């Protein structure tokens, strides 16, 4: 692994407008963040999600880095914040699922039927519905995970839902 001075040098070049250095900075940061989260999270997929979330946060809030201070403490403080946020969100989601357990499925539609119906949708629509309606992600989160725009994700959910309704109506009749 590179010394921590590396990140600082890369940041300095990036600030001077060197976009190749900025790309390398994000690459080195991704490696460090991956190691950081791998020690703290059991799920591989969560690790990668959080790495990406941190990279986006570092990019969007890069003004919050003080040029006179090392990059490492700044990056790890962001990483810690995003980790705490992850646990809080997951706690909420788990509580929501617990609540839902006792209640009946709307329209008496069991989970495996839902999966089968989703299988009949175009891949992108099914994925969007899984993320937003089943996992409870926001449209912004779903958009950044799939690498598409927020409005595109919303349109996919909307079209997918319309298609699902049509499929269910077909089955009932």
């Amino acid at each position, binding site marked *: 692994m590179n010394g921590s001075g590396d990140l600082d040098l890369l940041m300095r070049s*990036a*600030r*001077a*407008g060197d*976009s190749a250095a*900025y*790309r390398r900075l*994000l*690459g080195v940061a*991704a490696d460090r963040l991956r190691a950081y989260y791998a020690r703290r999270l059991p799920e591989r997929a969560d690790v*990668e999600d959080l*790495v*990406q979330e941190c*990279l*986006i*946060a570092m*990019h969007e*809030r*890069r*003004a*919050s*880095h*003080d040029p006179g*201070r090392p990059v*490492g*403490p*700044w*990056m*790890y*403080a*962001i990483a*810690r*914040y995003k980790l705490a*946020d992850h646990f809080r969100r997951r706690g909420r989601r788990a509580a929501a699922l617990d609540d839902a357990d006792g209640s009946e499925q709307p329209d008496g539609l069991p989970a495996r039927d839902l999966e089968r119906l989703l299988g009949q949708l175009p891949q992108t629509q099914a994925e969007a519905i899984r993320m937003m309606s089943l996992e409870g992600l926001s449209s912004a989160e779903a958009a*950044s*995970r*799939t*690498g598409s725009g927020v409005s595109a994700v919303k349109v996919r959910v909307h079209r997918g839902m319309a298609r699902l309704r049509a499929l269910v109506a077909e089955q009932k009749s």
Partner: protein
Amino acid sequence: MKTDSLIEQLARRPAPRLAHVPRIGFALPVAGAVLLASALLAMSLGSPAAALAQAGTAAFAMKLAFSLAVMLASGVALFASGRPGAELRGRLAILALPFLAVAALAGSELLAADPAWPGESWGRCLAAIGLLTPLAFAAAMLALRRLAPVALRFSGALAGLLAASTGATAYTLWCPETEALFLLSWYAAPMAAAAAIGALLGPRLLRW
């Protein structure tokens, strides 16, 4: 999406040097709040000349020094709290100084004589600071927009302190009072209350 392609996308977006100077971006909304607060007070209370004459230069200087010191110190601390990994302890120690000074002055007033309390214009003072604080608090939230607060309660409390001291700084021009005890009761206490409310609101308003 793969992390590598995310990095490609981020690096392709506006060059990092385009990030504006953060101190100016932070100070502008706060300065705007001071100006707007002063304008609102001028519109509702008229000219500050009478109150200034009644208070006298020394009392006015004391109130302005206290409010301005809290405003600057809390502004500096709030800015630092928006930079992950920044050192905060020294900045917080400085923030305590104006409060200690006013408490000491008020204590000596209590010992020396029987000071008038609550003071003639306390209601107006409380109303002015109470009405201006939410406005300045909104400005503080705006100021933090591009920064990255990681301790939301703490940043919220500092934002509350900054907001109330901004309102108080503007109000000093219209305040006819002369006693440090008044300053402690109707300037410092509302600032503390605003800090408490800010600590409650921080986690909701500052999440990112």
